[in-house]
């Protein structure tokens, strides 16, 4: 499996349901709004100009399209916050569109943004990919970049198109260190949706990180088969708490239900996607949070300078700690993480920056199989092909 496909698979699975729901929601709202928005967005398809100048050159307006709520304390809020910050830094006018379903409405929204003068557009949900790519092809003067996707052809990547993402498992392992060091019961809980590669990597990295600070730490896993179903998140969290887990983490789109359940049950939390420490200031240990602003700025700057074509962003770009450009970083520390633990975690982060890996062998699966032989550091592609939970994780990866 190729490196970034897991990100794509995750996002696709995540959006399968919300796709239908948002479409329905949009329908109902559009009905109420008497179609005033569609009138502006479906206006005459301007071509976006010729390709005489470099795509995106001199852009003073930048568009951002999001699939969900701008205040979801998760994936979309991370996009929203970064879009605001990056635009301010660059001195460009941001056009922000939230709750845009993964339908032709993406195309309409991009066209409306172009009509408003946008020359660079960030399409931030996986399901936007086909619309973003098609739009890029028909608008060669506009830079279209896609968050979490992967260009695999056919043909050469368009000169005005690219994808970008960040390596997740290393920041997640740092959260695992905080969890391992603070647990009293040596039992950690992890709520996830589907056993896709990126989630398997995250759970394995979480447990391996926890073992760094607490060799006895065990991670109990709960699959909900949904990216955001509060009822199932609640039953999962309740089962984990009752099993004795006193730190909960997750790989879900909406994180507040698990955080509230942990708070009510006196457990701590390690977050994902967004720094939600204000939901539970005392129980929050740390987490992984998207910090997209530097990436957005770098991409927009490259485009504005007229040098997008042929740059690293005119490709499938993945940020890493080693290259010091990972958009997924460590969230803030809560009060339970004392100074010495904080310095252990930041020291570990420093080793990742110089090429260390949480997945350096020997690593054994919880079924006894060898996952990574001793002394071997797996490649990013190999890590994204992991198909088992490591020793210390309670749970099995189902054969789908």
């Amino acid at each position, binding site marked *: 499996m190729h490196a970034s496909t897991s990100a794509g698979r995750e996002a696709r699975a995540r959006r399968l*349901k*919300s796709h239908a*729901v*948002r479409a*329905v*929601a*949009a*329908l*109902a*709202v559009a*009905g*109420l709004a008497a179609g005033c928005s569609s009138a502006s967005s479906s206006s005459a398809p301007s071509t976006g100009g010729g390709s005489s100048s470099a795509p995106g050159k001199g852009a003073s307006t930048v568009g951002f399209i999001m699939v969900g*709520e*701008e*205040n*979801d*304390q998760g994936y979309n809020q991370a996009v929203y916050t970064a879009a605001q910050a990056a635009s301010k830094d660059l001195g460009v006018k941001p056009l922000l569109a939230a*709750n845009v379903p993964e339908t032709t409405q993406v195309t309409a929204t991009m066209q409306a943004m172009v009509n408003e003068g946008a020359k660079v557009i960030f399409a931030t949900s996986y399901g936007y990919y086909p619309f973003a790519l098609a739009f890029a092809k028909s608008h060669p003067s506009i830079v279209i970049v896609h968050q979490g996707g992967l260009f695999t052809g056919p043909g050469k990547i368009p000169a005005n198109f690219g994808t970008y993402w960040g390596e997740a498992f290393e920041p997640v392992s740092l959260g695992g260190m905080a969890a391992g060091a603070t647990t009293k019961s040596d039992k950690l*809980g992890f709520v996830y949706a*589907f*056993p896709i590669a990126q989630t398997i990597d995250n759970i394995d990295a979480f447990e391996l990180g926890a073992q760094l600070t607490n060799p006895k730490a065990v991670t*109990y*896993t*709960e*699959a909900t*088969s*949904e990216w*955001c*179903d*509060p*009822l*199932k*998140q*609640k*039953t*999962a969290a*309740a*089962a*984990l708490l*009752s*099993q004795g*887990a006193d730190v909960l983490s997750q790989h879900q789109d*909406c994180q*507040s*239900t698990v955080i*509230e*359940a942990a708070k*009510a049950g006196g457990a701590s939390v390690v977050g994902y996607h967004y720094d*939600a420490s204000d*939901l539970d200031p005392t129980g929050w240990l740390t987490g992984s949070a998207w910090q997209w602003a530097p990436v957005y700025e770098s991409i927009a700057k490259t485009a504005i300078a007229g040098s997008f074509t042929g740059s690293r962003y005119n490709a499938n770009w993945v940020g890493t700690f080693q290259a010091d450009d990972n958009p997924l970083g460590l969230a803030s520390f809560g009060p339970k993480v004392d100074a010495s633990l904080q310095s252990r975690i930041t020291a570990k982060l420093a080793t990742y920056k110089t090429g260390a890996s949480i997945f350096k062998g020997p690593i054994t699966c919880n079924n006894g199989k060898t996952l990574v032989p001793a002394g071997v550091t797996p490649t990013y592609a190999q890590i994204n092909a992991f198909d088992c939970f490591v020793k210390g994780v*309670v*749970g*099995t990866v*189902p*054969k*789908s």
Partner: protein
Amino acid sequence: MNGLQQALAGGVESGTVILFPALGELIGERAGIVNLGSEGCMLAGALAAYALTAETGSPVLGVFVGAAAGALIGMAHAYLVVRRRADQLASGLVMWFLAVGLTAVLGAAFVSRTATPLEVVKIPLLGSIPGLGPILFDHDPLVYLGYALVPLVWWILFRTRAGLVLRATGERPEVVAVAGRRPELIQIAAVSIGAALAGVGGAQLSVGYVDNWFDDMTNGYGFVAVAVVLFAAWRPLWVLFGSYLFGVALASASVLQAHGVAVNQYLLDALPYLVTIVVLVAVARRGSNQAPEGVTRALTNTS
């Protein structure tokens, strides 16, 4: 609590989320009106309850407003269906669409707001019964309201004159009219009360159990409630059984995983639906088809 107790206790909590809209749907269908918009009524109830609780700090007030929000959507459905002769299934779906869209827009400000949920009340004495106490008598008050409501609905429907009139309306409204009653008003009232109960089910979800609001958080459980009524053959006690069965299966999936039992995740995910349908079809529906004639007409004669 051991695993079994935990699955049963969690099942009662999450089953109550299904029980309220299912009882509500039963009342409406006994009067001859199907409300596929139950899901939307739940969503409206969940949001209204959560919003009021977040703003006022009173989850009890939240529950009442949640019921009112559900009832409002139910009234709109009843008006379209009873007064304007709209197709029941189409109108119900429209109500659902409307609620999904409206709650997503109106609820945006309440995503990730915190609120004080309904408190768990352990019932004295009963809550201390070994084994049974934690399963049945250590929950939020809406769970106990559910216990009381089932026999009450049964008694009203099958032991009172009002219930007889309501059921007659569901079978032969013209006979009810000849007897000097107004079947249309009875239907509108029944659907509205049922929708209010669906709103309470939404409140149980947002301020009773999960303590959170998120768009589309009902995730199809309102449709599960409609299905439970169908498979329970329109009988309140079987609706109770079916709702809890679904909840217990849902909670069991979590408990099994937390104990490291290696069951395929996708099978676990399907379990609540499979178990509930199989058991209700095999047990509850054995014998007669008790569908109110009004419901049969609505389901078969879609004009």
